[in-house]
Structures are given as structure tokens and as C-alpha cells.
């Protein structure tokens, strides 16, 4: 399936792409567009203005996708708090990782094209997921 999002990937789009590939569509292919009108007809748009899988009622797109696809895994909701804070900075959640992650992603967006950022951040989110999975099981930081 094809998925489309805005070019100039940052935290929310990188996290959404990882989420889509890992939990919704393993064969996902991503298209980056500069204008909402440029989304190919067969592609599902996300994290763009005025689309279903965008910011909704104070949620970031990552949270919207979790809701839309009924993903109830508590570890994913833990990651959602980090993504939300890194993206919206509204202090709805206490997610101290968010600031560092935001800086890393902003830096990458200055040095790499979007496809490469997704290739790089995939394993990064795998690691974040595993860390929080173990933390959830243990009830404390796993390392």
C-alpha cells in the first residue's frame, strides 16, 4: 500500500512511518509531497493538514493513527507521549526523552533526505519500543 506525507520529515512523520510499517502495513511505501494536492489518488495521506490521519482534537498524528487502527498496546501509547511532546511541546505529558529526540530529528532533517531519515529512525524507534516494553514489564527502567 502507498502512504503519503509532507516532505521535510520530522518526529511525528518519522514515528508514524515506523508505526505504519511495523503494526499496520509491512509493505508500506512512502511518498513525500510538498502540497496536499500532490498526494497520489491511491495513497493514504497522514500528518498533513485536513486529512483524517492528522492532528485531531489536540492529538498528534501518531496518536490519531493509534486510535484509528485500534492499537491498544500500552507500550505504543507510551511512545505516543514522547512523540506528542517532541512534536507539540504542550506539556500534556511528562516525557523528558522528547526534547533530545526532537533535537536529533531536527538535525537529521538538515543533513539527510526523507527516505534516509526513515531508514535511520526505524531501528531507533525499534529500540525505544523495546526499552519501554521492558520498562513496562519490570515496572522500572530496564537498564
Amino acid at each position, binding site marked *: 500500500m502507498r502512504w503519503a506525507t509532507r516532505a521535510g520529515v*520530522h518526529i511525528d512523520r518519522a514515528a508514524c512511518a515506523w508505526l505504519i510499517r511495523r503494526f499496520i502495513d509491512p509493505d508500506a511505501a512512502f511518498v513525500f509531497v510538498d502540497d496536499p494536492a500532490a498526494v497520489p489518488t491511491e495513497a493514504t495521506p497522514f500528518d498533513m493538514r485536513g486529512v483524517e490521519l492528522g492532528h485531531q482534537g489536540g492529538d498528534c498524528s501518531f496518536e490519531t493513527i493509534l486510535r484509528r487502527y485500534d492499537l491498544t498496546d500500552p507500550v505504543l501509547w507510551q511512545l505516543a507521549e514522547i512523540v506528542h511532546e517532541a512534536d507539540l511541546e504542550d506539556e500534556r505529558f511528562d516525557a523528558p526523552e522528547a526534547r533530545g529526540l526532537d533535537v536529533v530529528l531536527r538535525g537529521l532533517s538538515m543533513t539527510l533526505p526523507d527516505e534516509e531519515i526513515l531508514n535511520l529512525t526505524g531501528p531507533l524507534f525499534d529500540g525505544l519500543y523495546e526499552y519501554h516494553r521492558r520498562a513496562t514489564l519490570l515496572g522500572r527502567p530496564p537498564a
Partner: protein
Amino acid sequence: MIGYPTTSAPGQWVLLCYRLPREPSTPRIAVWRKLKRLGVAQLGDGLVALPADARTREHLEWVADEVTEAGGTASVWLALPASRRQERDLAHQMATARAAEYAAIAAHAAAADDAPSSLGLLRRLRAEFARVTRRDFFPPTERGAARAALDDLATETRAEVAT
């Protein structure tokens, strides 16, 4: 005293033009808080501006969506000030607002002597400093003074913990 833009040509700005119904007031207040948090310059009634970059543009676009969701109208524009003077005035307005916020942080840090726990205060003020820095596009000298006051407070706190 203020880090004015010194380049010869004015830079690009992103503008949000919006109108929200007077009632209900909750979305109005939510939008106003968000804009305040972003450190926008007020150009007029329902017209705000930020220096354009990937982050500021994105944030204003999401605010625009929020306005539309709440039954209002909004549009986002990329604009160039017609003169450097105009841009300097805007930068001055924004730097003055940040300067007051930094001064408040420095004052709180300096008055920390009678606080029961300066560690908690230090954490709070550092978080506030980070928030102000995030919306500080034309750093005033007060930023350095606030930084120094926080460093002093950190030194005192370490000494306190050691004794």
C-alpha cells in the same frame, strides 16, 4: 542590546491570519495560549507572525487547523517585510517580550535564598528557561543574565547538598 537581524535583506516570515467566534471561549483561549507559547508577534487583530522555518510554519499550520475545527477561519502566509525597518520593529517587539520573561527567571533565581528547596526551584526555572529559549528568535542580553543567575543557583544548590 538585541540580536537584530543584520543581513541586508529582510528574512521570510510566516503569518497566521485567523478569526474565531467569540463564543464558546474555550477554543479561543486554547488558541491564544498556543500562540503565546510559540512567542508570536502580534501584527494586528487576529494576525500574528513568526520568523519562518520548518518548525514555526508547521506549528502555525496546526493552529490554523485547530481554528478551522473550532468553526473559525484561518489562513497561513509566507511573507517578506517590505523594509528592514519594519522587520527590526517586529524583532524589537519580540525581544522585549522575551527580555521580561528572562528577567523574571533571573529575579526568581536570585531570590532563592529563602526557598526551602532550591533544587526544586532550580528544576522549575531551568524548564521555564528552556521554554522561553524555544520562543526566543532575537536573543536579548537578559538571556545571558538569566543563564548566569541559573548557574549561580546551581552552584549554591550543589554546595547546599554537599553540606
